[in-house]
C-alpha cells in the first residue's frame, strides 16, 4: 500500500476514534437503571422561612409503612432532608433518590441509621436536586429493597467494552501512523511497506483485544461486588 493509502487510513481511524469517543459519551451505556420509578409524592404542607422554605411530603408505596413523611428544606444555596419514621428502629436503611427539575436522577444516597429517634438525621441534598423520593431498604430485621439501582447487564457491559476497545484500536492506529511520520519523516513510506509496520498494526489490534477483555472483566467483577455491597473497597476497579 502506498503512503497515501496509509494516510487515508490514519485519517479514517482518527475520525473513528472521535466518533467512538462521542458514542461512548452520548450513548450512556453505563447509565444507571433503577428499580424505582419516580413518583410525585403528595405535598402535605409548605412553610416559608427567613432564608428558604420547608415542604413536607407523604411518602408512597411500601416506604409508607416505615417512613411516613419527609421534609425538604430549600435555602438559597443548600437543600436538606429530614424523614419522619413511623416508629423507632434499631437499624434502618433507606435510599434517597434525588431528581433534577427535568426528572433525571442526580444522586442516590444510601443511608444507614442505628437506634433512631422518630426523626432521621439531617441529610444534605445535592444543589441540583429539585424532587426527592425516599425508598425504604431495610427496617430492623425486615429487608424490603436491597438496592434501587439495577446491576448492569452483561450485554451492555460487552457492548461498552467493544466500542471502547474499537475506539482504542482506532486511536492506537492513528497514533502509530503519526509517530512513524514524525520520527521517520522522508523514509516513512519505506517503513509502511516493511514487515515491521504490519507487526505494529497486529500489536495494536492484540492490545485492543486485551483491553476489551480487561474492560469486561473489571466491569463484571465490580458489578458482582457491588451486588454484595462491596463497592467501597473496589473504588479503583
Amino acid at each position: 500500500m502506498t503512503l497515501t493509502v496509509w494516510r487515508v487510513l490514519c485519517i479514517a481511524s482518527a475520525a473513528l476514534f472521535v466518533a467512538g469517543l462521542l458514542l461512548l459519551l452520548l450513548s450512556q451505556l453505563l447509565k444507571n437503571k433503577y428499580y424505582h420509578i419516580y413518583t410525585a409524592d403528595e405535598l402535605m404542607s409548605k412553610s416559608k422561612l427567613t432564608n428558604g422554605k420547608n415542604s413536607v411530603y407523604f411518602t408512597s408505596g411500601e416506604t409508607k409503612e416505615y417512613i411516613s413523611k419527609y421534609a425538604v428544606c430549600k435555602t438559597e444555596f443548600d437543600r436538606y432532608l429530614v424523614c419522619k419514621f413511623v416508629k423507632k428502629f434499631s437499624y434502618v436503611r433507606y435510599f434517597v433518590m434525588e431528581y433534577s427539575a427535568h426528572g433525571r436522577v442526580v444522586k442516590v444516597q444510601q443511608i444507614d441509621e442505628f437506634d433512631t429517634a422518630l426523626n432521621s438525621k439531617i441529610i444534605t441534598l445535592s444543589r441540583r436536586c429539585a424532587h426527592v423520593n425516599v425508598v425504604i431498604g431495610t427496617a430492623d430485621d425486615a429487608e424490603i429493597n436491597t438496592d434501587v439501582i439495577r446491576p448492569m447487564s452483561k450485554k451492555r457491559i460487552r457492548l461498552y467494552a467493544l466500542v471502547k476497545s474499537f475506539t482504542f484500536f482506532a486511536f492506537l492506529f492513528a497514533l502509530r501512523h503519526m509517530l512513524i511520520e514524525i520520527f521517520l519523516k522522508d523514509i516513512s513510506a519505506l517503513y509502511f511497506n516493511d514487515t515491521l509496520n504490519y507487526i505494529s498494526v497486529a500489536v495494536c489490534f492484540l492490545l485492543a483485544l486485551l483491553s476489551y477483555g480487561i474492560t469486561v472483566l473489571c466491569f463484571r467483577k465490580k458489578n458482582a461486588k457491588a451486588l454484595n455491597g462491596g463497592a467501597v473497597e473496589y473504588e479503583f476497579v
Partner: protein
Amino acid sequence: MSSYNNIRKIKYSKTPQDIVSLHEYIIFEDSHAKEKYVLFRFSNNVNQRLFEIKFEVSQFNSENRLLEKSTVIHKDFTAEPNGLFVPDAKLKINYECESLEVRLEEACFDRVKWSGGEFSDNSYSFAEYAETVPVTAPQSAPKKNKTAPKAEAGVKKNKLGFNIRNIFRRNKAIFPSVFNVILTVIVAGLIIGSAFYFKSVSGAYAVDDFIVKESDGFVTVLQYRGEEKEVEIPDLLDGKRVSKIASGAFNRSDVESVTVSVVNSFCIETGAFENCPSLKTVSASMFCGKITVMQGAFKNCKSLQLFDMPTAELSKGCFDGTNAIKYLSFDSPVYEGGKLLDLFTGLNKITLDYRINANLSDDFFAGVTRR
C-alpha cells in the same frame, strides 16, 4: 497527681435526636475543696463541621430537685461531621449536683445555623466554608443486610450511628482506562523504538525525489516520492553512482515516462515498476552502461508502449501483463534458446516494432509480427 477523688462517667440518652446531642459527661469531684466540675462529650449529628454551640445546663441534686440553670457557650473549636467531640473547657457546677440535663439552644455549622429548632442559612461566611476542605472518608456499609442490624448496631451505635454513602456513580470502572493509558505508552514506546531500529537497519535516506540506500560506494533507489510525471534516473545521486532500482521503488506510482541516464552498469530489480498504470515510455541512451532488467520489473504496466533501452539485457517475464507495447529496443535477452514472447507471459503472438542489437535466430521471433 489529680486532686479529684471521685470521677463518674455518666451516659446521657435523653435527646439523641438533636442535631448536636450530649453523648456522655464526666463529673469530677474534689471533696477537700468541695468543688465539682463537669466535662461534656457531644455528638455532632450533622454532616457538616460544627464551630459553635450554645446550650442550657440544668443541675439536679440527689432528690432530683433543680439546683440551678446556666447557659454555656463553646466557641473556637471545630467538630468533624457526624463525630463525637469534647469541648476544651470544664464547667464548674454546684457541689450538690448529682445529675444534669442539657438542652441545645444554638449550633453554628459550616453552612447552616440552628437556633431554637429552626435552621438559617450560614453559607455567606466564606471564611469558615474555606476551612472545610478535608472531608472524612465515608464509612463502609454493612456487608450483609440481613445480619447487619444486630452485628453492626453495637459498633455503629457507639461510633456514629449514621452513615451516608452516595451510590450513584458506581458503574464507573477506572482501571480499564488506566490500563489503556499504560498500553498507549507501551505502544508509543514500541513504535518509536521500531522506527529507530528500522532507520538504523535500512540505512535509507532521502535525496531529491528519491529515497536511496548506499552500499559499497553506490546507491540504490529504494523509492520515488516525487510528484513529477516525467522522471529521470540520474547517473549520480548524492555524489555517488546509481547502480540499482530496487523492488517496489515505483510501485503504483503515477509516472508516465522514465529516462535512465546511468553511465555504468545498472539493474532494474523485480517489481521495480510493478503496477504503474500511467507509465508509457521507458528509455535510456545508447551510451548507457549495461542495464539488466529482472523478471517482472515492468509487471502490469498496462499503458507501456515504448521501451527503448539499447543496452538492456532483458529477463524472461519482465513485461508480464504489459501487452500494449508497440516498440521494443534492447541489446539481448538474458536467457538462451527462448523466444521474444517469453518476455511476456501468456501471449501466443504479438505485433510490435523492435530493434535488437544481438544476432538472434528466426525462432526467437516466432509469433511476433513486425509492424
